[in-house]
């Protein structure tokens, strides 16, 4: 699903965020990405989402070499990746329903299809009753679940999450992580950047550890 081959990323100004990183995430696999802040977690996710490009080395997503993806094809590639952000990044002038519907509208689905899929996604995250509310009226945990619903509504084969539980208490964090496990169980590949080590250890999935831009540890596939 994701393949990094000797990837380095140097930002303009000379700061090297990633150095010679190689790893592989199999389809249907779930993994955590940890490391101190500034270790390169965000950069690694940005390379996958094509927000940044690798300086050297190659990144493959679903067999596609990202170096060979032109500017105009980036949107179509991103539609195959559900991205979940720490700060939720919801549109506050639209209802929960409209927020979740956005990826489907972008992809060009019909009206009925959108209604059906959005309600299914909201049902999955337990927010079906709040579809007409505005995100601002929801709690932090609920907002994050709206973000997750939006990420999965398009049924992407890969989910990326950047500190999805960063602002949540432990109980809510576990709830969110269980949600990711559920998606993983139906075949979605999941990569979660997090520094909540206790929670990660408790969940017991594969862990990749970054340290100053280098891959310092990989527990490998946990059976």
């Amino acid at each position: 699903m994701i393949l990094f081959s000797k990837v380095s990323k140097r930002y303009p100004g000379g700061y090297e965020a990633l150095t010679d990183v190689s790893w592989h995430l199999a389809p249907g696999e779930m993994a955590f990405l940890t490391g101190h802040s500034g270790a390169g977690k965000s950069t690694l996710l940005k390379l996958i989402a094509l927000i940044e490009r690798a300086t050297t080395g190659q990144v493959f997503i679903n067999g596609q070499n990202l170096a060979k993806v032109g500017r105009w094809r980036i949107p179509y590639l991103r539609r195959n990746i559900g991205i979940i952000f720490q700060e939720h990044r919801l549109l506050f002038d639209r209802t929960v329903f409209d927020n979740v519907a956005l990826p489907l509208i972008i992809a060009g689905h019909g009206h009925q299809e959108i209604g059906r899929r959005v309600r299914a996604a909201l049902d999955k995250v337990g927010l079906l009753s709040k579809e007409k509310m505005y995100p601002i009226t929801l709690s932090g945990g609920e907002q994050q679940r709206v973000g997750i619903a939006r990420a999965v509504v398009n049924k992407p084969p890969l989910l990326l999450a950047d500190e999805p539980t960063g602002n949540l208490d432990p109980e809510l964090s576990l709830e969110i992580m269980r949600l990711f496990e559920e998606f993983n169980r139906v075949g979605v590949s999941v990569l979660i950047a997090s520094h909540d080590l206790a929670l990660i250890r408790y969940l017991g999935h594969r862990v990749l550890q970054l340290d100053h831009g280098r891959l310092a540890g990989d527990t490998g596939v946990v059976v």
Partner: protein
Amino acid sequence: MAQAGRNPVAAEGARVARLNLRMRLHTWLLRHLQTFFYTLGQIWRRPFNALLTAAVIGIALSLPAGLHVLVDNGRQLANSWDGSAQISLFLQRSLSERHVQGLIDELAAMPEIAAVRYISREQALEEFKALSGFGEVLQMLEDNPLPAVLVLTPKVEKGLGPEALEDLLQQLQTRPEVDLAQLDMQWIKRIYALLNIVHRGVWVLGSLLGLTVLLVVGNTIRLAIQNRRDEIVIIKLIGGTNAFIRRPFLYTGLWHGLIGSFFALILIQLSLWLLAGPVAGLAGLYESSFSLHGLSLLTILSLFASGCLLGLLGSWLAVGRHLRDIEPS
């Protein structure tokens, strides 16, 4: 065997492709329809900003369009005055007063002539003294050098063009009492020339104000893009193409242009309505039935077309310029 097996597959592929094309066209139209109503709803929810922009556009559009209407009216007026050209007959100086009176009666009886006005040599001298400022010099002359003049107003007949007037002029010129016959159409020509200048001015003004509309819309859209910066980033992150992001802004520009055109129409009609009274009064003084006519259908259509086009173009320029700078980081 293999040949037979391949054909249905190819046909299937073609059908799927055609179906996809139709579906894609369908969703494309649906998208446009959605954006159409979405942007209209946005304006509806916050009408104040949109109306402000539309008012500026309306004023900018109404100036050239309104002037265009006035020039049109001026042309109409000049046309209707064409027939009221006057012929001046400069008489032989040796002609006696009694002879002149006979000529006046004769001319007044002609069917082509509506009225005859007589300016005697003395009247002509008085007029010249008053208007030229050479009064002192003229007093030194023993004799009055000016001829008597008959000012004829030809009868205005429909279909009687300038040629008929020229014929009448020729006829009068050959009379022994007449020294010189002159058709006085100069001022009509001058009015036409003036109207042409004003008309050209309307185009210049129109171009400048069109540019203003472009800048106003461009600036409004630029602000809208900056206000929605976060939204644009999010849409880009979840796979929205530039075309998808651009579309609502283009529609917003179109709406601004359309509402602005409507404003302009109202402003022009209001001005015409305000002018109609005084113009009717003035026409009454000239015993004319002239009245201001409003915008023609063609003018209204071009007003709306240029408004929409300028709105679209302005937002297109702004979106093209600013959308590229907004990328997720």
